[in-house]
């Protein structure tokens, strides 16, 4: 009886303010539309990153679709005013990991002899006295895509987020849920892997 009474009372309360409920619903619908529009504006960026993380174009497309479906479903979990891009890319990278990408052996942690000037030095050696500004063009765009695909996953995630996604170290740390120091060391290794592969490709192409 008490339960019934409280039910009647609460029904009466909400019935006395139907316009408040209607206004709240309209506001929510408007917020949702705006949220979905903002997320959709990030589609090109999401696709570019997904293409470098997923092994094939088809898988990249699936990954982007899953990401957006999940983002739209969980829009209430997004806190307005926080970094929407980081929020969306966190969904994307988590889904990519959940998709069961092939387990890789932890990459060798041998010390890498070559420093950051290595690739330039190699290119300079292989083609003396050329226009300085065009040294980079001796690398083909295909070789860059291939070299990036060969970088081990954990390192590549960071390189792709920072270099292609244009995220800060702090954002990448938040997205991948790893400490910022780990972002820096993986980025460092990943970029060196990339440059080593590019150096090898350039030498092979030249010979």
């Amino acid at each position, binding site marked *: 009886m008490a339960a019934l009474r409280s039910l009647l009372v609460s029904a009466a309360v909400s019935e006395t303010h139907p316009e408040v409920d209607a206004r709240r619903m309209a506001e929510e619908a408007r917020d949702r539309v705006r949220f*979905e529009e903002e997320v959709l504006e990030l589609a090109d960026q999401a696709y570019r990153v997904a293409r470098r993380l997923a092994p094939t174009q088809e898988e990249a497309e699936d990954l982007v679709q899953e990401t*957006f479906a999940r983002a739209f479903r969980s829009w209430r979990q997004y806190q307005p005013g926080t970094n929407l891009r980081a929020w969306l890319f966190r969904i994307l990278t988590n889904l990519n990991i959940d998709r069961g990408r092939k387990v890789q052996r932890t990459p060798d942690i041998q010390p890498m002899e070559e420093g950051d000037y290595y690739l330039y030095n190699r290119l300079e050696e292989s083609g003396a006295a050329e226009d*300085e500004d065009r040294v*980079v063009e001796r*690398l083909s765009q295909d070789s860059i895509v291939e070299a990036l695909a060969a970088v081990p996953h954990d390192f590549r995630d960071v390189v792709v987020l920072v270099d292609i996604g244009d995220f800060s170290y702090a954002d990448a740390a938040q997205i991948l849920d790893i400490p910022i120091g780990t972002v820096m060391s993986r980025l460092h290794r990943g970029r060196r892997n990339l440059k080593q592969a590019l150096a090898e490709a350039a030498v092979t192409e030249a010979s």
Partner: protein
Amino acid sequence: MDPCDKCEDLLQPFLDRELTDAEREEAETHLDACGYCRKRYKFEESLRRYVVSACREPMPAELKAKLAALRTPL
């Protein structure tokens, strides 16, 4: 430590704009005086742009339409 080696170590965080003011000043002072390092910094900068442009791939129109269709119907 050799100043060029030090400058080489600062290259990545320099371009990522993640150096402290003091570190950045140190790198800039060295770069002003050292053509060897300057060339390599310039190369790294253009390499980054080149990597970004190699990865600039338009999203298929069908995929874009599929994403738009995932929106909540009004």
